[in-house]
């Protein structure tokens, strides 16, 4: 009497050599021998390891929470973009008074120019004569 497991294994034992060959092939092509592992890891490998660690430890266990946060941020971004799309009238409303002010200012300057006479050129002072000089005047001494 045999168990089903024994029968199944005996029935397929002939495949063992092919499975051995297959195993060796996979090991050679997809794994690294132990002595090769002794080499110092390159920067790229280190970065990959860090990302892998972060992914497995932080993100993957709580992927629903992260997905929720991403959805929330996308919602905020969409709302922000939508708000920006509805805002273009605001800057033009602000620009209109500025144009009015400029125009009024120009008008005031024009009126001011019309009202005020043109400025006289500054009068040139004639050089003082020697007689005008205090030092050249005759000094009258007062008697005590």
């Amino acid at each position: 009497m045999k168990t089903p497991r024994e029968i199944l294994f005996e029935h397929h034992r002939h495949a063992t050599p092919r499975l051995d060959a297959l195993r060796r092939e996979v090991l050679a092509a997809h794994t690294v021998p132990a002595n090769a592992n002794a080499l110092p890891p390159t920067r790229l490998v280190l970065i990959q390891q860090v990302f892998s660690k972060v992914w497995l430890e932080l993100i993957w266990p709580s992927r629903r929470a992260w997905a929720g946060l991403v959805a929330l941020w996308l919602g905020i971004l969409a709302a922000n973009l939508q708000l920006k799309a509805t805002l273009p009238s605001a800057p033009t409303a602000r620009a209109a008074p500025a144009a009015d002010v400029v125009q009024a200012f120009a008008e005031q300057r024009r009126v001011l120019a019309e009202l005020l006479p043109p400025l006289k050129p500054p009068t040139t002072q004639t050089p003082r004569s020697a007689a005008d000089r205090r030092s050249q005047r005759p000094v009258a001494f007062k008697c005590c």
Partner: protein
Amino acid sequence: MLVMAECNPLPVPQARAGDQAAWDVLFRRYQLPLYVYVFELVRDEQASLDIVQETFIKAVRHIRGLREDEKFGGWLFGIAHQRCIQSWRKQTREEAALEEVGAAPAEFEAGPDDLLIRREHEETFMRLLSRLSPPQRAVLLLHFVEDFSIEQIAEITRSATGTVKSRLHYAKRALRKLLGEQ
């Protein structure tokens, strides 16, 4: 004969670290059980070898995704099972309709060795096994080959535990019935 209880823990952490020798140990341990399982599902030698090879390659590539080392065996069979399902889909779709679905039995036969087969019935057993529907065969093989628990089989086949219990119960009953008729 394969001893189910592992004396030494499998070198899964070493394999995860990229140790080739550890992978060799793991592959040696599982190559024949995986092949038996896959062959009995797809019934094609070359396709079975291809699936085992793909399973090994996927295991090496995705070992970092395995979070519980003690579940390595179930995880490996899960990879193979998904590949077998793809193969079934290619082959036939109507076989699933043959599946005998019933309520989960109240009591469940515990061990895989409760069914003992006489030498003269060995070939008949192998033939009868192939006559079961693929879902029933898958559950029965996982039970026979690796003595996986109901929960482990449910994880591997991505089914509910009730469904697994039901399939196993009806598969064993069908097998007994067929063996009794011989």
